């Protein structure tokens, strides 16, 4: 079956016709007020949420949707947030003071992509009409399920991933649905955290609703609605123009690989083809592999794929709002049911980050084909370690298991103008201070360092991943690892080379040293054991032989690049006694590498390649499934 979920078309407006309905000053005031309202409501979440995942890692957003459920401003990324709510609660049945809640990835058809992501929605009524919806979102700590933290590498069914909340009305005209609330809280290992977090999200959605109402009062309903339409149309126009500008007629396809699905040893891949015929832009992912038995399935939606493209183009005029217009670049999206991008019930979805991070990167890879490599290279998939241990502390209930969900940084792709970012998790998420972990858990952080040579070589170097040593001080514990890029590193582009791979080692440098499967769960460790995680780096951009020699020297001095890699990858000869570059030898060395290596190609991972077929063939031959 082929599903196509084309969203409402946004006809690009004619640029020669200035938007005449609402004057530009009022429009900017509305944009500014939306931005301020979003900031205010997100602040409420950050300040009031209980779990460290939200407070410290900052995995939350607030968005505004119009009466059609289309984004006014926010980060819903093309998801059809309202569709599944309306199936249960038609718009006409909603009342002021209502608040809706869900996390069900299957019922929502991928507007939520794994169970910990909770959505709360407050309808906005003005003059008796539902004029908008406010939406708060965050990643929750634990909803029951197979293990503390709910989602995990070894899960094989959605039921392992914790409580499913179909769309429900949690607040009915101002009155909390206490019965439903108690059931959901009862199913968590840490109900206090769940209560604190859900209260925070409810408060944020309600405040957002109040702020929108104030804006309707201040600017008037007709003006607000017209300004929203115009903003969506403006963003759509920009995205559409940039898309057509960047992509010549033709077909561009890429494939990316996930190490394995959590269970089993086979790699999985998805395939993405972008085609332009005339002014019709089409994305086709039907060539992707079948769904995985494990937890890396990702319910992609047409809207999400379109939004990934739109988000890429949004960087060219960030004064425009990120809104439904982001979807306007792509006309049509094809997905195949039963594939890893459109899994069938009840496949587990918890670790879908592996797939979607690579899918977001694939949008850039497709554009690399269209633009001759003028994009950011591949980025490694962010890492989470689930440290679980029995608390040895005298003043704690020793029978309880403690969970430390440790988000760990990776290296990001190099850009056409700059090196990739070293040691960043994913956008704004933050790590735990070592001193917080040691104070809070029977763990000791013994090393937190840059992983040398993990950044893909290039004229601009890929970002480096990190190295993190954690020792268990409790008598017993287990750990789960969401570590990707152990087999397939991030791709380099425009002559840049692939990034380094990830690796996990138990008790390194001791007689008990042992490799640990990078993406795995239920690993046992005992008191005194030390786990070392090396995270992967980003891909490089441009030919490493063209990298400025002094930059290579600086990288060696600062430990980002080894002497050996400087010589072999960058062709830079450094005198270890004086720590200076020997320019003559470097010239010669670079020539000889160039000669033996041959010309670079558009992409690099393991080898240089120009087309996905070329790489696929190489992978099938050297890394058979």
């Amino acid at each position, binding site marked *: 079956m082929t599903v196509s979920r084309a969203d409402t078309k946004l006809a690009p407006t004619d640029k020669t016709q*200035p938007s005449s309905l609402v004057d530009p000053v009022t429009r900017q005031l509305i944009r500014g007020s939306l931005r301020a309202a979003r900031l205010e409501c997100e602040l409420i979440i950050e300040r009031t949420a209980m779990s460290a995942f939200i407070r410290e890692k900052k995995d939350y957003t607030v968005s505004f949707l119009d009466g059609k459920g289309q984004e006014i401003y926010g980060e819903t990324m093309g998801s059809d947030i309202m569709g599944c709510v309306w199936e249960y609660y038609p718009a006409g049945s909603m009342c002021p003071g209502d608040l809706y809640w869900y996390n069900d990835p299957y019922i929502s058809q991928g507007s939520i992509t794994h169970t910990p992501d909770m959505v709360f929605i407050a309808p906005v009524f003005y003059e008796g009409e539902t004029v908008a919806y406010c939406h708060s979102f965050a990643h929750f700590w634990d909803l029951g399920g197979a293990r503390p933290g709910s989602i995990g590498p070894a899960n094989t069914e959605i039921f392992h991933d914790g409580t499913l909340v179909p769309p429900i009305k949690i607040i009915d005209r101002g009155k909390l649905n206490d019965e439903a609330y108690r059931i959901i809280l009862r199913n968590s290992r840490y109900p206090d955290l769940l209560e604190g977090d859900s209260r925070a999200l409810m408060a944020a959605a309600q405040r957002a609703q109040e702020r929108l109402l104030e804006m309707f009062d201040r600017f008037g309903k007709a003006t607000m609605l017209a300004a929203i339409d115009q903003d969506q149309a403006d963003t759509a126009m920009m995205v559409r123009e940039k898309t057509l500008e960047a992509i010549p007629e033709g077909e561009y396809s890429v494939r990316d690989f996930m190490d394995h699905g959590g269970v089993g040893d086979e790699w999985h891949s998805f395939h993405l083809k972008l085609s332009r015929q005339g002014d019709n832009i089409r994305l086709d992912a039907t060539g992707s592999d079948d769904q995985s038995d494990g937890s890396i399935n990702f319910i992609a939606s047409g809207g999400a794929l379109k939004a990934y493209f739109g988000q890429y183009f949004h960087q060219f005029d960030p004064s425009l709002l990120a809104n439904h217009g982001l979807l306007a670049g792509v006309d049509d999206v094809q997905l195949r049911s039963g594939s890893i991008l459109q899994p069938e019930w009840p496949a587990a979805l918890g670790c879908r980050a592996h797939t979607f991070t690579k899918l977001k990167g694939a949008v850039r890879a497709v554009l690399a084909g269209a633009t001759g490599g003028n994009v950011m290279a591949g980025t490694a998939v962010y890492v989470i370690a689930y440290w679980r241990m029995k608390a040895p502390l005298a*003043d704690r209930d020793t029978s309880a298991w403690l969970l430390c969900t440790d988000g760990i940084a990776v290296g990001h792709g190099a850009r056409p103008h700059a090196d990739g970012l070293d040691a960043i998790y994913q956008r704004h998420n933050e790590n735990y201070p070592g001193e917080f972990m040691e104070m809070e858990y029977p763990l000791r952080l013994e090393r937190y360092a840059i992983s040398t040579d993990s950044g893909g070589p290039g004229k601009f170097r890929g970002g480096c991943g990190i190295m993190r040593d954690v020792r268990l001080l409790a008598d017993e514990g287990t750990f789960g690892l969401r570590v990707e890029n152990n087999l397939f590193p991030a791709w380099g582009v425009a002559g840049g080379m692939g990034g380094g791979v990830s690796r996990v080692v138990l008790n390194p440098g001791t007689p008990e040293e042992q490799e640990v499967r990078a993406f795995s769960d239920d690993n046992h460790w005992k008191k005194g054991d030390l786990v070392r995680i090396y995270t992967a780096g980003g891909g490089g951009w441009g030919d490493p032989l063209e990298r400025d020699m002094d930059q290579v020297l600086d990288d060696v001095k600062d430990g980002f690049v080894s002497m050996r890699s400087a010589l072999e990858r960058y062709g830079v000869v450094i005198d270890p006694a004086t720590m200076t570059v020997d320019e003559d030898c470097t010239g010669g060395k670079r020539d000889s590498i160039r000669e033996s290596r041959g010309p670079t190609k558009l992409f690099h991972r393991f080898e240089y390649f120009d087309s996905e077929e070329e790489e696929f063939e190489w992978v099938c031959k050297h890394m058979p499934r």
Partner: protein
Amino acid sequence: MGTYGVAVDVGGTFTDIVLCDLESNAQRVFKTPSTPEDPAVGFMTGLARILADNGVQPSEVVHIFHGTTIATNSVLENRGAPVGLLVTEGFKYVLEIARHGMPRLANPHSWVKPDRPVQPRDCLEVRERTGYDGGLLLPMDEEGVRDAADHFRQAGISSVAVSFLNSYANPENERRAREILYEALPGVAVSLSSEVLPVYREYERTITTVLNAYVTPRVSVYIENLKNSLDDFGISAAFSIMKSNGGTIGSAMAARQPVYTALSGPAAGVMATGQVAETTRIEDCISFDMGGTSTDVSLLRNREPGMTLNGKLGEWPIQLPMLDIATIGCGGGSIAEVSPYGSLTVGPSSAGADPGPVCYGNGATRPTVTDANLALGRVNTRIAGGQLVLDRDAAERAIDDNIASQLGLDVPSAASGILKIANNAMVGAIRNISVERGHDPRDFALVAYGGAGPMHAIDVANLLGIGTVVVPLHPGIASAYGLLVAEFKNDYARTFLQRPPDYDLDGIAAVYSELEREGRDWLREEGVPVASHSLARSADLRYAHQGSELTVQYTGTGTESETNGSQLDRDGLENMVAEFHRRHEQLYGFSLEQAVEIVTLRVTASGQVGHVEMSRISVGGDGVRRAAVERRQVFFEETDGYVSCPVYHRGGLRLGETLKGPAILEGMDSTVIINPGWDALIDDYGNCIMRAS
């Protein structure tokens, strides 16, 4: 022979000076251009002028209060000293990795990590380890410290930061490392994290310590030079410097821990706001300091500014107690532009002091907020007492070319649009600081100062639903006033984790008395009379597992007792925990029946040497008529067009006089705009109190 205090606030463009007769409380003000290359030059020039103009002898000056941006600018302009960092083995990259920090709205395609003040090659590791509870897990490898010293010497490093893991719980290894560094590197400054910021979170503590090390050489030389110049000039007065916490410290202390002075200027402005609130008998207010490139806002409850531990210096977090001031990248110099897809934006790019707005005639072509004010008649073409003549035609042309014609608007609509967008940004920021602290801005008065604040204040107040706006007599030099009225104040803190139910009362008491002893010693050193010593205890509390804390006051007994300092009152502790629940509820909307942990203990030591008040203005008869300058056409948002508006010379207005909006008051340092629908009253301190009628 008189006794005088002098406050000198060195800003980016101007150095503001207030001379205060400490007996009669009479005050004189003076403004002179700053000299960024060597700020001491402007300082001394201005000081000499104000003394000469008022016939005061250098020997009559007994106290100098100074607000300086030298530490801030050293960081912002990357002009600090070469720094070395010594860390625990395994943590060489603590600055590089930081908290994985990427600003929330940063664009991943273009954002580049800012360069750290010290590169990894100069971050050296030493084998040693302390546990979170202060236990020594691994003795320090002293040879390793000597090797590091060799490296630092060869690398030409003049200032070293030492930040070991968990050193907040036990500073022993850091102190020993300093001894070794002093031996091996004579003349090199050493900053210890256990002294600069002895609280947990290794990245934040380390970057703060590194910044301290980074600015120490430059700040100590600056202070030394200033003191020499003062000596040569015949002034041997006490010399104190404003800190980011709104208090002052002696210059010797400032030279040791200069990072504490980072937000000295904005902090002084907020302290002046507290004074304005006192003289106008307003309890709760919001300070609104709009300058050339940015606007600072902060909230004062019961005339007390809020404190935060989440401040920033440029790109860097510094978790020192500082006044809770939010900065918006929008000021008089903010540039208005039309994006490729037709949105009109204002800021954050700024014309700065050079070239400045188009109307300054220094070659700028892109219109700014100031140009919009000028084009609308809201500001005179002759400002600063006629010293500066502005080119209104050029401003209008720039708005027409860059904005109006692009958007199909006329010039007044485009100019008023620029102002509306700027004001809208202020409103968002003020709302956020209010909400963040659990308050509704409508319950506050707005105190406006800075060059542009009094021009925008009523528009901003209207949008927020604020009914009272106050502009002090000299809004352009509010920070210098703040320096005069601030107390001596220093904060002491130590992380000392306590989990319920068995809080270690004796342990807590011991930490408190140690912090209090440090505080008292310092107050004595500054010459603060014992009777005025105040030592306030507080602590950072959190629910178990929470990642951030709230600071609450300890009000039980056991404080301020020099002989009996080790006692701790269990009720006091319980009250503190109850206060934590209450504050959590107020700020976050809920509290929990969960265990409360005590994380960091704090003591604030403060005291005053003498008390300075604002001076009163004289009573007049028919000031309004005498003060009238002209009538001109001025554009107001309310009228959506030009109206004839009377303009007054502010200095000519007398106590008790009232005005009805629309009206404009022009002073040496600022223009006050009274919108239609607002009334103004001049009070006995010269404050202009405006109310929505």
